[in-house]
């Protein structure tokens, strides 16, 4: 009973259910807001004056909205208007191609008012020499295009608007990905512009089966999202599942793929990441070739890939470009670093407070002498230092670079020197924290490193209360939890549990390229073979590929 009451009290502290989005009044707009549903109801008027006045009503007070009235054809001409949002369009196209084409060339072509009715078609087919044009019949489509960098051509007497694609805004160049550097391999990274990103993928994958399907999310941001997969490799159920989950999203804004990630992942209540994200096109292509599905979000260089099991987070793109001996060694280094970053502080706590007999005698003397005079128990000391370290790391990320240096100096001096010489923490603890930090930086994917960073603290509590037994219990709990997870239907610990011996080639080791003949078992149901078998290179062998292993 008491427990129930305490729990109830505790539950009161937890956040209450949020009100539904519909109920929230947007008080930002001072005049009137135009909802999508309402706009879709209103067709484009045949009278130019009406259309212009509507556009002015909706967008007219924006300083970046431009409405240029022109006249088409000979004589007095037909009144028409070009509308666009300045900054989103390429002005050269607007003035050189559109205005010139419509006015000057229209006049030369002898366009007359009588041609009305076909005028829009004429303009579309003969006058507008721009690659992509489309027609908009309602105000929603019109505004949608306008706000996505298209130029709207409205002609008097036409109840449709012509949307001319003249997108041209400032974009970042293709640069080396900041979060995923490598020594050997392509340097290109995704940019914020989705088209560039799909192009980066297509350039590496000239397969007609590569599918890029577009979707649009966000009631207000209307963010373009595209899913990319290879027909025939990606399981149809998987593609359908991705589409289904995406279609369930109803949100006012998508600013980064992280929001999509949180909205589509299988298990929301777990610290483990279940969606892979990367900035590298080559990484995405290699995962597409394994039968995965990529989700590209406009406005962010981070591309999501699903499904993503644990093993994926331990692989780095470079693994496949370096020779396999090194890649395997490095991979094991990463596994060790992962376990270290999770358990080292808790091991230190357990050993120094419960299992002193496990410390080798000579080490014990240094442990004992370094702990001498420290006022805090090992657990508090470890917690304190880990807190310092995490705070330091956080401070280092957010601050401008010039100040960031000062932070690291202060941090190193305060924690590394002063705290030790003031006998607040033991030098050994500093080493433990530093090692843990380094180990957590060794993770190839940041999202898994964060998981380990978080889980470290409960592990420390386990170690401080139950010693090694607690650590083992904690690790088991984590293992059981991870084994129960799924990412888009794929068991999280996939090649290990359930065991697929063939796939261990890319988990425990990084097998040489000529040995990795198969795609992951869990992912690909159809085309399992990745390459012809028996391609072990040996001098003098002239056998055609595929002749070695008895044929594919």
């Amino acid at each position, binding site marked *: 009973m008491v427990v129930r009451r305490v729990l109830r009290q505790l*539950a009161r502290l*937890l956040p209450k259910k949020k009100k539904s989005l519909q109920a929230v009044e947007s008080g930002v707009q001072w005049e009137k807001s135009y909802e999508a549903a309402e706009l879709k109801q209103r067709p484009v008027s045949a009278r130019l004056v009406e259309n212009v006045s509507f556009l002015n009503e909706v967008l007219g007070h924006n300083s970046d909205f431009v409405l240029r009235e022109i006249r088409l054809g000979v004589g007095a001409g037909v009144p028409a208007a070009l509308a666009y949002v300045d900054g989103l369009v390429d002005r050269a196209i607007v003035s050189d191609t559109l205005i010139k084409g419509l006015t000057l060339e229209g006049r030369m072509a002898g366009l007359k008012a009588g041609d009305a009715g076909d005028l829009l078609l004429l303009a579309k087919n003969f006058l507008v020499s721009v690659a992509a044009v489309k027609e908009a019949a309602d105000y929603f489509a019109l505004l949608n295009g306008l706000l996505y960098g298209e130029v709207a051509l409205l002609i008097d007497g036409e109840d449709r608007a012509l949307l001319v694609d003249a997108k041209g805004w400032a974009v970042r160049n293709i640069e080396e990905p900041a979060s995923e550097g490598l020594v050997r391999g392509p340097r290109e990274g995704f940019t914020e512009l989705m088209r560039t990103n799909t192009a980066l993928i297509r350039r590496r994958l000239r397969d007609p089966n590569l599918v890029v399907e577009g979707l649009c999310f966000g009631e207000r941001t209307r963010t373009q999202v595209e899913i990319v997969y290879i027909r025939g490799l990606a399981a149809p159920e998987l593609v359908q599942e991705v589409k289904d989950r995406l279609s369930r999203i109803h949100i006012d804004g998508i600013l980064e793929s992280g929001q999509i990630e949180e909205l589509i992942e299988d298990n929301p209540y777990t610290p483990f990441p279940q969606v892979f994200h990367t900035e590298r096109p080559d990484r995405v292509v290699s995962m597409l070739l394994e039968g995965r599905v990529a989700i590209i979000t406009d406005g962010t260089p981070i591309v999501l890939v699903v499904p993503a099991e644990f093993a994926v987070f331990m692989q780095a793109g470079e693994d496949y470009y370096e020779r396999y001996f090194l890649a395997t060694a490095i991979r094991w280094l990463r596994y060790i670093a992962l376990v270290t970053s999770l358990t080292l502080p808790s091991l230190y706590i357990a050993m*120094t407070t*419960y299992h002193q007999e496990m*410390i080798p*005698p000579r080490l014990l003397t240094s442990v*004992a002498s*370094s702990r001498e005079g420290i006022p805090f128990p090992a657990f508090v000391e470890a917690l304190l230092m880990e807190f310092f370290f995490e705070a330091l790391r956080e401070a280092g990320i957010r601050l401008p670079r010039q100040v960031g240096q000062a932070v690291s100096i202060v941090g190193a001096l305060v924690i590394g020197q002063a705290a030790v010489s003031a006998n607040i923490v033991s030098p050994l603890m500093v080493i433990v924290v530093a090692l843990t930090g380094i180990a957590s930086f060794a993770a190839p994917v940041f999202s898994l490193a964060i998981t380990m960073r978080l889980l470290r603290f409960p592990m420390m509590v386990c170690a401080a209360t139950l010693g090694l037994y*607690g650590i083992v219990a904690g690790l088991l709990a984590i293992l059981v939890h991870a084994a129960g997870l799924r990412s888009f239907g794929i068991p999280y610990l996939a090649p290990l549990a359930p065991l697929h011996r063939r796939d261990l080639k890319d988990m425990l080791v990084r097998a040489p390229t000529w040995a990795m003949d198969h795609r992951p078992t869990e992912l690909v149901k159809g085309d399992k073979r990745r390459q012809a078998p028996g391609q072990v290179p040996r001098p003098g062998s002239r056998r055609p590929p595929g002749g070695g292993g008895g044929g594919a």
Partner: protein
Amino acid sequence: MLRGVRRAAGLLLAALFVLAAAGCWDYKEVEDMGHVMLTSVDLTHRGKFCLRVQVLVPAALAGGGGAGGMAGGGAARGGGARKPYRHYLAEADTLFEAFRDLTTKAPRRLFFAHNQVILVGERLARERGVGPVVDFFERNPQIRRDTWLLVARGDLKELMDVSSILDPLPGRHILGVVDNRDLSSRVAATRLGDFVEMLESPGREAYTGVVEMVPSETVSRIGLTPGAAGPDPAKDIRITGAAVFKGDKLAGFLDNREARGLLWLRGEVRGGPVEFALPGGGRVAVEILRAGRGAVKLEPVLSEGRLSMRVRIKTRVNLVEAQAPGLELDKPAVIYGLEEELSRAIRGEVEAALARLQGEYRADAFGFGEAVHRRYPRAWRQIKGEWEGYFAALPVEVEVKTSIRRTGLIKKPLVPKGGDKIKGIQGG
């Protein structure tokens, strides 16, 4: 969703309760513990156990102490830096009582998991026997079975104070010396676990190494400043020979040569020097290459109602020193001659041990009884009651086979200019 969160919170809370209720009960910080590095037990004049433990003083080690005040430590510094250890002493009728009596004096909880050496005083070993001591230590989970159990000769109080600048902790100092045992193979040091086995198995008496104090020949007690006493005692620890038990009581000691003989028969020789004189003058020293347990065979022979032992030892050595110019080491015949001399020298060692143990102590530390038991179980059952007498009269035939593998980097002995060649063993 809220239900899920509530359930998760409930589970978390429950886990916390469990941890709080069940955890921490044996929680102890390193710095709250007194780490015992060396333990000694002896008998007082009133017949009580006298327990002495050496507790690590971490603070003295922290500041680079220990070594402090060694060389230049003048009178001004008095005893120099603090010693990195502190002794506690207790006397009682049982060891447990003594151990708990220590806790009334020591400010920290004593912890024995890192105690690697237990010293047993000669007096205790001789008069009371080590049985009760070993029983206690074997029972105690904190004491490891690989702890060295050694017999100490001389004043334990002083002996436990002997350290060196190399190892400021006396306990570790002794341990370091014991760890070198295979380089000489003249010390029969034994671990607690093995000692217990020997103590309990019939037909085999226990033995272990001996620790004694010797005056240091290199460190002078007199400092540069007149009257200033250096903090380092002008004494050294030496481990030597063996202490042989009969039952759990000390029967007597073996010197280094006899201890080597004992180790040969136990198959415990794993290195160390053998030197021997050549008939034609000059001396040669060889180093034993791992002889190991398989290299010795104890064969009891029962023929016509008479029991005798045949002992076969096989060993391989490297010649490391040849004080014999003119010795033609590249001739096989010379090597064979040397091997014969070497076998004789080893036989001498074994016979010395046999003589001492059979003739004087009548204690079968060799495990002959065990060998008989294994080979002739029926006969053993009849004679095991009077084994001591049988052992003392047992004829032992020693057969040693040696082979010299290498002669070092140079082939011929070094001959200085104008030096006389000694006539060594001639080949062929």
